[in-house]
């Protein structure tokens, strides 16, 4: 007791120091941490809201047009697809070849290839092709007429490869011609 009395100032100093540290630890630190967290959260929220507002404002002018544009995209896609036949059966192709034979007075020996997928589009629609391999014999003029017919035909059809010999003396073109017809297999998603 006498020691306390003798060094009361020292003990009081220690007590006050401890009290100060306690106050700091109990009242300051937790609240400071909580404050910083909340401030950070709100600052982030404000920043992202500002960015979002800027971004949204940027597109606000064209927003009313978007629905029409999306519809136009679909319409444009459908218009494109309409240009193709839905399928190419062997019968249809044989009829087509007979038509060519009659039109151009040619000798044709035809084999029809399998249906092949050329490419598949994002909506699942596939672009298909079917190849006609034709052993061909006609006059040069008729060969050119046939090419001209193919190019003006509304069907999407084309000579793909040819390997033709031409005899100028007899004006006969003979060899092999491959013709490809395209079709679409539309699969609506």
């Amino acid at each position: 007791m006498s020691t306390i009395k003798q060094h009361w100032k020292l003990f009081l100093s220690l007590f006050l120091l401890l009290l100060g540290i306690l106050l700091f630890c109990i009242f300051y630190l937790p609240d400071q941490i909580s404050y910083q967290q909340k401030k950070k959260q709100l600052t982030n929220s404000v920043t992202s809201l500002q960015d979002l507002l800027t971004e949204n404002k940027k597109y606000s002018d064209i927003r009313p047009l978007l629905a029409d544009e999306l519809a136009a995209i679909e319409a444009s896609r459908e218009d494109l697809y309409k240009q193709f036949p839905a399928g190419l059966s062997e019968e249809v192709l044989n009829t087509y070849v007979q038509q060519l034979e009659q039109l151009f007075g040619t000798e044709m020996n035809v084999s029809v290839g399998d249906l092949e997928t050329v490419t598949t589009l994002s909506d699942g629609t596939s672009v298909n092709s079917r190849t006609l391999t034709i052993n061909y014999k006609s006059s040069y003029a008729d060969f050119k007429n046939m090419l001209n017919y193919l190019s003006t035909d509304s069907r999407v059809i084309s000579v793909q490869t040819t390997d033709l010999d031409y005899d100028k003396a007899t004006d006969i073109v003979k060899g092999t011609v491959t013709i490809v017809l395209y079709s679409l297999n539309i699969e609506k998603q």
Partner: protein
Amino acid sequence: MKKYILTNVLLIASVIVLIVCAFLAFGPRSSWKQTIADLQKQEQSLRTQGAPYEGAADEYKNYSSKYKIYSKDWDDLFRSIRTYNDNLTLILGELDTHLPNASSITKIDMTADGLTIKVSGESKEVLAHVIMSLQNLKYASLKSISDITGGTGKVSHTTRTSGEDIFATLQNELKQDRSREEHLFAELATCGAAEMNALIQKYGYQHTAAPTTGKFTQQKAAIIRMFSSNPFATKKFFEVVKYDYENNKANSLGQMIIDDDRITLEVKTKFKQIYTGEVTDTNTLLSYMFDILSVITQKDKIDTTIRIIQNSNSIPSATNTNLAQWYNYYLAKTIEGNANDTLVYLNKTACAQALINNNWDTGHTRVNEILLKYLYNPAVSGGDSENPNAPDQSTDSGKPDTSPSDDLFLSRYWTWALEKLGIAKLDLPIPEYIPIEIQIALTDWGKSGRKNELPQEVYNWFYHDYLPSKFPDNSGASTGKEGTRYYMTCKLIYREDVILQELARKGLNYTNKLEKLEGKK
């Protein structure tokens, strides 16, 4: 007494600590509250402001991604459908009209690449006419000519007729022909070493002024001119500097630069990176070139620079160009005093745009011509790999291989030149495998601005000696002799726009593709 003071000081300090802690514990709370309240207010305000616009960006992103898919589908579809009927019809129509009557097509092969026709003619003159006609087709471009045969024999490339003016008619027609420049280069690329040597002996460039030594101003001008206009020389120089340092360390150009206190550390570092091989990236090397030029042409270093240039041919190198000859050439031209009179100067922006965008149509016409002809000519990257009849260049000692990276190097070189020089001086970089004497002759011609006029002597050689040599010797098969026919195979390339036009006629019009919304605005 001392203890008393110490105790009191401790007490006062404790009180101060307590006060500070108490202030920290309770003081800032109001300020914190205010800050949080302000932020909450700002957040609320932004939410209110944003409400009318909410979702606009998401809706646009949705549209944008759908457009992207649509656009890709559209392109994929048009890429996958190929119609060649129009091309064939138009090309055959043109051939019927333009080919000489004395010629005839005996075989037609068509693939996705183009059309190969075998043509026969009564005489060599007829085939020469056919070549000319094919070069002028509107609906196809002539890619290559091969398998030239006469009678029953195949052409021997080493057979050369002389003095026979069988191409007189062709020569007259050629005066109107603008594509002979490419033709010349393509043919030069197929020359054998013996033919090249003969050509060099006959038509190699002769300087009117002999290179002299000791004239600093001229030497400096020649070096600067060489490195700012000749990518092959620049590329070789990088290698030479490195070799010089590795083999003549104490007396090397690199060491001289390092030892020179007047040169900044930055420039020294750049030079060191070159001679130590630390930097090999072309872009970086070229970005250093401006600084390098300023130091290698200093008065006390120019002799060393010239020494390593003159000795450059003895070093192992991946770049097959004769740096010493190029230097002598530029020096001679500088001495002759026509350093600047015939160079082609170009607008920087237009050139850079053309290079960056690869958009040759909107770039400067001259850039288009030069880059397309010399930098992107198939011959530069090693010739026509699809033509099995093309001579094997790799085994021909007269035509060293070009590095596969040359195209890239050249492209970057010009980008550098355009950026750093402000204007580009286009000395024409001619394919490396053509010997330097011929390169010089053609470079002079190219710079002369007479782009539609070949030097008469080269012209004469090409059409009187070289082309006739491609045809059979006349022994037993004279021109037009009855019963003898000549044949050749020509490859023609389709026109893409004709394919698109035909598809459009069939209802598949590529230009019907919708534009993206921003594009419309």
